C-alpha cells in the first residue's frame, strides 16, 4: 500500500510554479498590473482563476477518497419542505426566536433618543436607521421579562439592534446577541412546557433546541399585534 504505484500515466499535470502576481503587481501588491484596467480586481482576472484551478492539480490528501466514499454512501439531504427559518437572539439570559421574514435588518447598536413621558413603558425611544426614525421598543418589557438577571460577562460587541417589519408595522429592538438565520424542521418545534414558559404564554408557539440552548419561538402575529395595541 505504501509503495507508490506508478501507473502508465502520461505526465499531463502541469508542474509550473505558481507566480503570485496578485501579490506583486495586483490588488494585494502595488496595483501596477496593466490588466487591472480591464478586470478591476484580480479575482476577475483569468490568470488568478487559472492559478486557483492549478491548486487542484495536487495529489489526493491521505484519507480523501475514503472520506468522500463515506460521504456519498449516505442519502442526500435535500432541503425539506416545511422547514422554518428563524433568527435567534438573546435578551439577557433568554434565547428567543422569530421568523426570519419578520426582520429587515440587523443593525449595530446606536444611540436611542428617549421620548418625554415614556420612561417606564415598552417604548425606549427613537432610533435612526438609514435616516428613518423608528420606534425602539423593549422586547423584554413587552414579554414581562424585565427583571431578568443580565449577564455581566457578556461582551458588548455582540449587542445588536434588530429592525423588524411585520404586516407593515416597523420597530427596532435592542438585543444582546443575534445568531443569524437558522433553519429548523417543523418537527423540531417542541411545545412549550406548561410551567416552564417564562414568557407570557400567548407569545410562545414552541421551543427550539439549538446547540444545547433552548429558544422560545415567538408568534409574530401575537407579538406585533400586542405591540401595536400597547402603543395606541
Amino acid at each position, binding site marked *: 500500500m505504501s509503495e507508490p504505484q506508478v*501507473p*502508465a*500515466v*502520461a505526465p*499531463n*499535470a502541469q508542474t509550473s510554479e505558481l507566480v503570485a502576481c496578485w501579490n506583486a503587481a495586483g490588488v494585494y501588491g502595488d496595483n501596477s498590473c496593466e490588466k487591472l484596467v480591464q478586470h478591476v480586481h484580480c479575482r476577475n482576472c483569468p490568470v488568478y482563476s487559472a492559478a486557483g*484551478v492549478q*491548486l*487542484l*492539480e*495536487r*495529489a*489526493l490528501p491521505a484519507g*480523501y*477518497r*475514503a472520506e*468522500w*466514499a463515506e*460521504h*456519498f*454512501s*449516505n*442519502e*442526500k439531504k435535500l432541503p425539506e419542505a416545511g422547514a422554518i427559518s428563524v433568527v435567534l437572539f438573546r435578551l439577557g439570559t433568554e434565547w428567543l426566536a422569530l421568523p426570519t421574514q419578520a426582520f429587515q435588518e440587523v443593525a449595530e447598536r446606536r444611540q436611542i433618543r428617549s421620548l418625554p413621558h415614556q420612561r417606564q413603558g415598552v417604548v425606549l425611544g427613537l432610533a435612526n436607521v438609514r435616516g428613518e426614525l423608528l420606534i425602539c421598543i423593549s422586547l423584554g418589557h413587552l414579554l414581562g421579562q424585565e427583571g431578568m438577571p443580565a449577564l455581566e460577562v457578556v461582551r458588548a460587541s455582540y449587542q445588536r439592534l434588530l429592525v423588524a417589519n411585520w404586516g407593515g408595522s416597523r420597530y427596532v429592538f435592542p438585543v444582546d446577541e443575534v445568531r443569524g438565520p437558522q433553519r429548523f424542521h417543523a418537527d423540531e418545534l417542541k411545545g412549550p412546557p406548561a410551567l416552564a414558559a417564562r414568557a407570557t404564554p400567548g407569545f410562545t408557539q414552541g421551543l427550539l433546541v439549538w446547540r444545547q440552548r433552548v429558544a422560545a419561538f415567538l408568534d409574530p402575529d401575537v407579538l406585533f399585534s400586542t405591540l401595536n395595541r400597547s402603543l395606541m
Partner: protein
Amino acid sequence: MLFLLFQLGKERYALPASKVVEVVPLLTLKALPKAPPGVAGIFNYRGSPVPAVDISELTLGYRSSECLSTRIIVVEYPDANGNNKLLGLIAEHATEMLRRDAKEFLDAGVKLANAPFLGPILMDAKGPVQLIQEQKLLDEPVRDLLFQEQLTLNPPTAVSTS
C-alpha cells in the same frame, strides 16, 4: 448551453451539463476483479451501487491521475432495455464549465468506427473542445456487463413476446 469540460490526455472535451447528474470527488471504488479495461469499479452513490469507468483508460489506455482535479462525473446511461442507469465517468481536469451556443460545435468531419462517442468540435481560443456523446462511450458487451446485475435483480415486469 452549459458544458462541463474535462480532459483526456491534453485534449479538452465537453459534456452537456444537462446530461450530468452530479460531479463527485474521486472516492474509493470497490475494484472489480477481471473487469475489462476501463471499468474502474463500483462505488456507493447515495445508497445504491453505481459502476465507474475511467474514460482516460477507456479511450487512451492509461488510468487517470489521482489528483484533486480528477473527478467522477455521474451521468445517466441507458442499459440494453433503454432504462436509464447511473454511471460514473472518471475524468481528469473536470474543473471548468463553459457556456456556449450548441450551434458553435461543428461537425468534425471525421468518424472513427472505434470511437463513436466523439461528437462535434468547438474551435475555442484556448484550443478545440470536442463534445462527448456519453451514451456511446461503452461497447455493448461492457455496458451489458455493468448493468447486468440490476437487470437480474429487477426483471422487467411486462415483457411482450413478439
